[in-house]
């Protein structure tokens, strides 16, 4: 019951803020909504017993990535409205329609499929994964089974850092 309340509240918040992100005319407002959206997602992670990911979500997404967006929004100080020009050939309406269609299809598949799964075969929904929290287990997994992807990810970040510096540096 409590989970249901939490889920529906968060779902409404997440979707509403998501819609706000893509509909708000002001870019800065978009960013703020995005942060709030991410915070809600983080809370959803807590509901899903992924405390570590929730904290990381806040730390990296909200505290890092979105701040970057905010910076860029401030640096990109436009003299005219950002979306003034519109190419007549763009297929926005078609895209919108297709997105809706795909969403409906997917939702149909999901509902249909899960509806056919008998409750007995579904894994127990309740109960935490572990008593002591999953940070340590996640660390073990990351540094043993997923060591190579982890290292690759670190290299990726390094490359991204170098790339960002090179790109953003003013050529003198």
């Amino acid at each position, binding site marked *: 019951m409590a989970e249901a309340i939490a889920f529906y509240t968060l779902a409404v918040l997440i979707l509403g803020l998501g819609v706000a992100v893509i509909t708000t005319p002001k870019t800065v407002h978009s960013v703020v909504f995005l942060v709030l959206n991410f915070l809600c997602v983080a809370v959803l992670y807590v509901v899903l017993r992924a405390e570590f990911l929730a904290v990381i979500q806040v730390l990296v997404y909200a505290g890092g990535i979105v701040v970057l967006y905010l910076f860029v929004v401030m640096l990109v100080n436009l003299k005219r409205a950002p979306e003034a020009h519109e190419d007549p050939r763009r297929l926005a309406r078609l895209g919108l329609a297709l*997105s809706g269609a795909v969403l409906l299809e997917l939702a149909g598949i999901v509902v249909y499929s899960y509806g056919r799964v008998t409750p007995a075969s579904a894994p127990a929904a309740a109960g935490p994964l572990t008593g002591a929290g999953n940070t340590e287990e996640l660390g073990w997994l990351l540094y043993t089974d997923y060591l190579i992807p982890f290292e690759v990810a670190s290299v990726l*970040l390094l490359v991204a850092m170098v790339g960002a510096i090179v790109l*953003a540096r003013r050529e003198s």
Partner: protein
Amino acid sequence: MEITPAHYTVLSAALFSIGVIGVLVRRNVIIIFMAIELMLNAVNINLVAHARYLENLAGQVFVVFVIAVAAAEAAVGLGILLAFFRNKETVNIDEMNIMRW
């Protein structure tokens, strides 16, 4: 009122679709980027939810990787955006069309 993975999947699909729509409809590149972040988060919700219901932490591990990739994407993407903005004074994606015939 039991919350099943289906609920999370549908939530994820919906958030993903919002992201897709944002990417397809908006012309401000920054917002398009943010829409991409929304899509990534939709995927993450899916992964975490299934990690919980399948009692397998691999899903959470992948969320970590997704976050890392998102960070890299944001850094490089926004770097490119800044470089572009410096040259063309615009962030409108419809004006970024010189790579064609």
